[in-house]
């Protein structure tokens, strides 16, 4: 039976894992992920979820146990944040390298020592080189839906990539919004049981992937990422058809018709940005919003297609890459994606919400205004604009 109620992001994620019929969950608690795994424990205890939750002693173990379980034939789910993701950095190389379709949640939290418990995106973006698919979610509903989509993407035999479903700690994980939990039978029909075509550890049917050189494996992994762009979009389209909700797969263009400039946001701040953009549109300002949902694989082709429509793109980077070639991580990715275009928009780049500070409507308005001005003047004022350094008045 499908039902709808107020649900925090962590709870929605637990329901996502439940609906996906995750068989093994090796996990270790860390704020702001803890309610996710305690909800799973509760759902198991009251019989709702038929899953083995392995209470491992650390995140390093959690991901290694996930690898063993996935190779052993079980559908695996896990989750972590910040320091925990860093602690599992060594085993995080293994699922993409061995093409194991593990799905995990990265509940974003800023990294120590320059952060506390609240979010920025460095913890998940730090994993961008390994081969994980990185998808970002704006609210509880999207978290639940994206987890189901993630398994469909990951377990596609043309793909076999692990997927991380990322969402901001506190702002998504602990904020309750109306969430529809689809019917289990309907999900079962859409998401069949997991059976890896390359791996079988059972002695009577033992099978391992044929030996390939490292270069062949690497190229195979890169090829899977290229192929996954279409798969991610198709899965979302299919999901929308069956369950009524879709997010565009890779990016979403919001209120962009006739815009001269756009802001690119990710994760929870997108919700706030939608309201600000609507306000500014009502004032006659030609500003639109692009929500970047899929960070890996980076939607190069999507951006190349839409970029020529705009004079300036304002990239909001809720992350740092100290000593970088210029600004934040998303801006650098986008710059490379657009580099070959003969008619490139200007890129304005902003740091905001770092170390988990709230991203306010005033700040979004400021970034939109700066980008509109660049579109008008043809001048980009800073390589990177640290928005929090400006006094922009009261919080809201």
């Amino acid at each position, binding site marked *: 039976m499908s039902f709808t109620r107020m649900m925090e992001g962590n709870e929605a994620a637990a329901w996502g894992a439940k609906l996906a019929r995750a068989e093994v969950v090796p996990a270790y608690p860390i704020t702001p992920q803890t309610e996710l795994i305690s909800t799973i424990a509760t759902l198991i205890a009251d019989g709702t979820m038929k899953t083995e939750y392995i*209470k491992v002693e650390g995140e390093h173990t959690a991901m290694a146990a996930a690898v063993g379980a996935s190779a052993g034939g079980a559908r695996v789910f896990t989750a972590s944040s910040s320091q925990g993701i860093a602690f599992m950095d060594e085993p995080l190389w293994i699922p993409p390298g061995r093409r194991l379709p593990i799905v995990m949640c990265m509940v974003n939290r800023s990294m120590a020592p320059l952060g506390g418990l609240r979010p920025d995106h460095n913890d998940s973006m730090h994993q961008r080189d390994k081969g994980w698919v990185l998808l970002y979610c704006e609210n509880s509903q999207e978290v639940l839906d994206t987890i189901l989509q993630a398994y469909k993407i990951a377990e596609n035999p043309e793909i076999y990539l692990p997927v991380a479903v990322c969402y901001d700690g506190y702002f998504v994980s602990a904020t309750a919004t109306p969430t529809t939990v689809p019917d289990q039978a309907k999900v079962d029909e859409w998401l069949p049981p997991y059976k890896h075509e390359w791996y079988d550890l059972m002695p009577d049917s033992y099978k391992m992937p044929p030996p390939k050189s490292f270069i062949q494996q690497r190229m195979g992994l890169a090829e899977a990422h290229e192929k996954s762009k279409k798969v991610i979009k198709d899965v979302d389209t299919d999901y929308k058809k069956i369950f009524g909700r879709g997010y565009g797969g890779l990016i979403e263009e919001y209120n962009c018709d006739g815009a001269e400039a756009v802001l690119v946001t990710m994760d929870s701040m997108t919700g706030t940005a939608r309201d600000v953009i609507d306000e500014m549109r009502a004032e006659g300002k030609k500003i639109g919003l692009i929500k970047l949902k899929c960070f890996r694989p980076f939607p190069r082709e999507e951006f190349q297609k839409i970029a020529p429509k705009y004079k300036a793109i304002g990239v909001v980077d809720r992350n740092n890459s100290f000593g970088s070639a210029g600004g934040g991580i998303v801006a650098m990715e986008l710059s490379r994606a657009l580099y070959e275009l003969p008619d490139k928009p200007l890129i304005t780049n902003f740091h905001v919400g770092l170390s988990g500070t709230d991203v306010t409507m005033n700040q979004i308005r400021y970034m939109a205004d700066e980008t509109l001005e660049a579109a008008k003047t043809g001048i980009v004022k800073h390589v990177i604009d640290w928005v929090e350094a400006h006094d922009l008045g009261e919080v809201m």
Partner: protein
Amino acid sequence: MYNEEFDKYYNENMIQGGTTCCPGCGGPLFWKLALKVFGPNTIVYGDGPCAMCALRSIKVPYYGIHFSFVADGATGISAALRAKGREDVTLISSAGDGATSDISLGKISAAAERNENFLQICIDNEAYMNTGIQKSGLTPYGAWTTTTPTGKESNKKDVPMIIAAHKVPYVATASVAYPQDLARKLEKAKSIKGFKFLHTVIPCPTGWRFDPAKAVEVTRLGVDTWVNPLYEIEEGVLKVNRKTEAKPVQEYLKAQGRFRRLTEDQLAYIQSEVDKKRDDLLGNDGKQIIH
């Protein structure tokens, strides 16, 4: 001339002859003896000790991750077996001494605490041999290694007792020099549900510096001098298996080049430590030592 007969023999043994291990390595000998007990319905999860060269030659399913993940992958595989309704499969988790006592001790401790259902084996050649003979927590006092060129100054960790303290169903020490005792222990471990731990010191002619032909002989001396005593702890009750008179440790130590530089004082120290351990074991034989 006998190729066909041997090929059949390797399949029966579930291990291919001619591993990439050093001549005289106790690793392939251990697996040859062990696989006979485990049988074909087995999955081995293992990491990278030297003796892993043997694991590349076994003919039962093998899965590995690097040695910082001892017991972790097995934990996952164990859960997958339950999820798939295949608890009939025997799951073995193997690690070297470096992994067991150093980098993954916490992992093994946690798996023991969770009472994971597999047999954790420590294949102990008493140093990080794979990377060229560096000291580990299980290197004995006084032994030469490349990182302890004047002899190791600290004592060998008592890993079986550490694991036994977790109140797991079964802990045992065993030796390839006493194959019947080893087989009996593996048989018992196979029949128990929950976390089992087996510690076996295997000979390493390359790292211990002795003629490979003496591999089994040296291992036997290790047991007969009570440097590596044979015992079991089942549900916390100690049972000492070999209660022979102790040969002087000198016989064991002199047989290996890595102890060449031991002084008289160091020899005396080692003998007294071995004697104390022997008295302790014999005094507690048959008693409930883990509560």
